[in-house]
């Protein structure tokens, strides 16, 4: 159906672009109704303890205030934990806003002020006073490291580490070359530019329309229906535009609960928009401590891989992600031991953040690979090429495709890797030490169950619908491309209806699954429409397509025709008219092929090459060049695809150099809870970035050959930066982020 491609695979500009650039794309807080109430949350100022008393009198007397909710007067909601568990919840008891006087993390909602205006709610919130009985919090991972444990209950969808294989300890001790080191990563917060917000439009006690900032409208709908006992038929959640999420929007946030609660209680429409500080009480990328031990023989062949990771989780949920498994499948090695444990801190439950697990685990693995290359005296790229593997040793499965060799080749050529001088501190530019580093990236190419509907109308308009989400990933655009391609219409003729919980069922927009899953469902639905049109055509008198089989016909130029001879066919409008129909619509459903999954697994791959320049005296570091070569199957839209990789690189640079939620461990409070002091890269930090998509044909990863792109862009970037810093300075930095003070302190000794 996609041969030859007219629009899929082309660098089409985003179909939602004109709305976004003109400020006409409404995000969750940007819906209006006369008389709408505004809610503002009061946050705890301790990390652990109990509310002794809470005084709302002054706030209640404030002009414009309607009601103030605390744990003392919150309307009742579901009792069982299972009702509070969203579609990606880890094992445990989900946080319930304003339910108990207990405080479990810094920035926990302790009161909720609802008022006639935003200003009244904001200003009244500052008048709520809370007295606490404070417990001594534990927020430093190193302090609880000794209490780490293997999570008893596994998080659904997260593969636990594989069983050890071979004799990793023996192989390690007997090997010619070995490295073993500990890598520490501080916790990060996603900080999407849009703060979480919910607008509830109240119609009656049972009917609500909710605009929510979420990566899954149906996940939010199910959450509030479960908690408040609402009928999913009467609740519609919409998320037409999502101002970034990066995983933070996978689980429903407290503003959704509070907005719906107040709306039902007050029988009014309610809007809640978080503050930036409030965003630091939400999910975060957990701090981690990892030990990686690698051993190789004289020739550089890996003999042993051991990777142990401990990640922070909360007291109330065992958040889990895939951290260490990558080390067992990245390179060929017959002896491997991978272990993963959690340790509890007095913070909110961590959550998925762009390439959850892989960003963390591959950082340690790929740093260690660089250390091993140095130890052997081998080029870091050569070491990786030497240990290349074509299948997954963890699961003993074949790979659906792996164009990583091409990534290495094309990436290194574009970068000029062969001009690298091997020794650290051997490349200079004026005051600057120059360092070149590289790393490999891995991410799973998954599919989730997804449904879609496709409608073709007699006027040539195509409608594609699914409850999918576009968090900036380009979902609107690629679905429009698929619709246009299927019916041979211009992209302007395709209406993409997504971001609405009443549309066909789709999972949350995460894990780089959407293009593969919803995209495939759309294609299958489009095929079904074509088949229906063929059925109708064959019912027509003297049908020229009477004997045609579905695979023999295509839609071209408004007609259903024989692929081999476009002259033979019928206008689609005539087909519809023959049945007196104005349109035809069919559903489509896609999901992972379970039979195939017994034999195959699918991953995306990348090779990242980074140049840094570091002022030798001052420690000022610039990432001056990055080349990222990506193997991710079929690229539906190179323009939006490139942007996703660019974004991953930028966030990876932030991860390497800047991002850290700085906790005062005496109080357990995050002190840099704002964008002035939680540093993400700014324009000036980002120089030239080059993205290469290598050719990779994959007919198994998904029905449309797509592997997904949201995560792979970040994986490996921070390691490549760190490896470049080593090459520049000769110092290994194993504590992330590598801020200027760390670099300076090491340079003092040179």
């Amino acid at each position, binding site marked *: 159906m996609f041969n030859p491609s007219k629009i899929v695979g082309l660098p089409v500009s985003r179909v939602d672009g004109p709305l976004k650039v003109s400020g006409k794309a409404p995000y969750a807080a940007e819906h209006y109704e006369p008389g709408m109430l505004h809610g503002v949350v009061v946050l705890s100022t301790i990390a652990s303890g109990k509310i002794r008393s809470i005084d709302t009198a002054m706030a209640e007397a404030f002009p414009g205030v309607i009601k103030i909710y605390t744990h003392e007067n919150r309307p009742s909601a579901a009792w069982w934990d299972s009702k509070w568990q969203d579609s990606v919840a880890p094992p445990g008891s989900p946080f319930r806003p304003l339910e108990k006087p207990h405080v479990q993390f810094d920035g926990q909602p302790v009161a909720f002020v609802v008022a006639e205006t935003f200003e009244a709610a904001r*200003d009244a919130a*500052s008048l709520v006073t809370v007295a606490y009985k404070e417990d001594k919090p534990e927020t430093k991972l190193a302090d609880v490291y000794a209490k780490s444990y293997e999570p008893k209950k596994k998080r659904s969808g997260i593969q636990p580490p594989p069983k050890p294989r071979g004799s990793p300890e023996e192989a390690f001790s007997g090997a010619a070359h070995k490295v073993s080191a500990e890598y520490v990563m501080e916790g990060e917060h996603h900080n999407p530019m849009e703060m979480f917000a919910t607008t509830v439009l109240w119609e009656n006690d049972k009917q609500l329309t909710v605009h929510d900032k979420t990566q899954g409208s149906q996940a939010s709908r199910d959450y509030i229906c479960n908690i408040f006992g609402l009928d999913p038929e009467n609740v519609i959640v919409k998320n037409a535009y999502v101002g970034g999420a990066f995983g933070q929007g996978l689980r429903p946030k407290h503003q959704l609960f509070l907005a719906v609660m107040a709306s039902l209680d007050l029988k009014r429409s309610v809007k809640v928009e978080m503050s930036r500080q409030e965003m630091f009480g939400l999910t975060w990328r957990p701090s981690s401590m990892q030990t990686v031990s690698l051993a190789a023989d004289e020739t550089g062949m890996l003999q042993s891989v051991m990777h142990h990771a401990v990640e922070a989780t909360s007291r109330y949920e065992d958040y889990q992600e895939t951290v260490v498994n990558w080390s067992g499948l990245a390179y060929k090695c017959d002896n491997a031991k991978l272990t993963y444990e959690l340790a509890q801190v007095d913070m909110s439950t961590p959550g998925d953040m762009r390439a959850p697990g892989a960003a963390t685990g591959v950082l340690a693995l790929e740093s260690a690979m660089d250390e091993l290359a140095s130890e052997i005296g081998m080029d870091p790229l050569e070491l990786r090429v030497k240990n290349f593997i074509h299948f997954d040793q963890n699961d003993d499965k074949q790979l659906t495709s792996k164009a990583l060799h091409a990534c290495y080749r094309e990436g290194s050529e574009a970068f000029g890797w062969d001009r690298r001088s091997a020794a650290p501190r051997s490349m200079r530019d004026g005051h600057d030490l120059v360092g070149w580093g590289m790393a490999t990236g891995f991410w799973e190419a998954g599919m989730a169950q997804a449904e879609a509907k496709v409608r073709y109308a007699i006027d040539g308009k195509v409608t594609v619908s699914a409850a999918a989400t576009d968090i900036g990933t380009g979902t609107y655009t690629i679905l429009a491309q698929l619709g246009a391609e299927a019916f041979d219409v211009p992209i302007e003729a395709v209406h993409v209806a997504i971001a609405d919980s009443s549309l066909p069922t789709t999972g949350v927009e995460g894990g780089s699954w959407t293009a593969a899953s919803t995209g495939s469902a759309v294609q299958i639905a489009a095929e079904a429409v074509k088949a229906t049109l063929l059925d109708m055509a064959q019912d027509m008198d003297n049908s020229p397509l009477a004997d045609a089989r579905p695979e023999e016909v295509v839609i071209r130029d408004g007609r259903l025709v024989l692929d081999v001879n476009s002259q033979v066919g019928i206008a689609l409008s005539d087909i519809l008219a023959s049945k007196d129909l104005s349109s035809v619509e069919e559903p489509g459903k896609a999901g992972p092929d379970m039979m195939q999954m017994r034999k195959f697994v699918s991953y995306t791959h990348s090779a990242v090459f980074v140049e840094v320049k570091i002022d030798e*005296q001052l420690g000022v570091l610039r990432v001056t060049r990055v080349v990222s070569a990506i193997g991710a199957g079929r690229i539906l839209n190179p323009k939006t695809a490139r942007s996703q990789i660019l974004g991953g690189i930028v966030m990876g640079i932030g991860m390497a150099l800047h991002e850290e939620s700085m906790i005062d461990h005496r109080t357990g409070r995050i002190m840099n809870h*704002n964008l002035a002091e939680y540093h993400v890269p700014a324009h000036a930090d980002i120089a030239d970035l080059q993205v290469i998509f290598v050719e990779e044909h994959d007919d198994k990863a998904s029905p449309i050959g797509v592997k997904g792109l949201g995560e792979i862009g970040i994986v490996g970037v921070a390691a490549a930066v760190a490896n470049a810093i080593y090459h520049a300075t000769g110092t290994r930095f194993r504590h992330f982020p590598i801020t*200027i003070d760390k670099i300076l302190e090491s340079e003092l000794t040179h």
Partner: protein
Amino acid sequence: MKQFSYIRAENVAGAVAALAADPQARLLAGGTNLVDLMKYDVMSPPTVIDINRLPLKDIETLDDGSLRIGALVSNAALAYDPTVAERFPLLASALLAGASPQLRNAATTGGNLLQRTRCYYFYDPASPCNKREPGSGCGAIGGVNRIHAILGASASCIATHPSDMCVALAALDATVEVEGPDGRRDIPFLAFHRLPGDEPQYDNTLAPNEMVVAIRLRPDHFAANHSYLKIRDRLSYAFALVSVAAAIDMKDGGITDIRVALGGVAHKPWRDPLAEAECAGKPANEATFRELAQRLLAGAQGQGGNDFKIPMAERTIIRALTQAANGTPQVQSEKAIR
């Protein structure tokens, strides 16, 4: 934010009178700091006096050749003013190192002088902070303090002054013109900001009923050999970990006058005029610069998280002075350090 009374002043006398009437009132100009702090409930003035209409927006050259900058001249207008760029490029460069273009368009000269610290604990009303709430203690001592002071701190406060502009003004020995109910007076720049001592609630020596009306810069010097070098956690739009305003007058390779002011390291822009004076006659070379840097930092003390600032400051001073001596000042859009 706490609600407040709003007064829109039409002239300086009116603003001063309104200030005199309510010692807790605050003047509002660009709003880039005060509105920010009011939203965090760090500052909650009962009265806000809007001075944006006051006629303090001129940059004029006075008869004696000095430059008078109205308190309401925006940071951007000042940075890009042709006279400033030509005669006081150190000031222009420092301004362009600070904040963002949007903030520089709004922020004013007078307001920049009165900028409050960026200490996390000052900014967080739930934390102890002697500056925000005298007697409540200092959260930063023993806490997260990588951005804090290494010079002139006290047991009450280790906050730093966050301005870039003020560091250049300190180096240039500017004069602050202030007006109160009793008329105008001049405050030498180095006497304007103060060290925290045991009264960190006072950032400066301005009386509660006075307002800054202008800054004066003495006639031209340091137009040739100067540099503003700012070191921070990312390459733009971040406060200084350490910044240095350096300026040198030289004759035959020997120093006739030298200035070094430090930002990001103390409760005020840090200078040591005595140490500077001792450089007179010495060669403008690294040895001299190092000696001066070490003199400046002789009393430096880290707090744990900010120990790195001591060597960072020393190295930044040497580099900035080298840039100044070579006539190759740091260009703020260039991220390689010259």
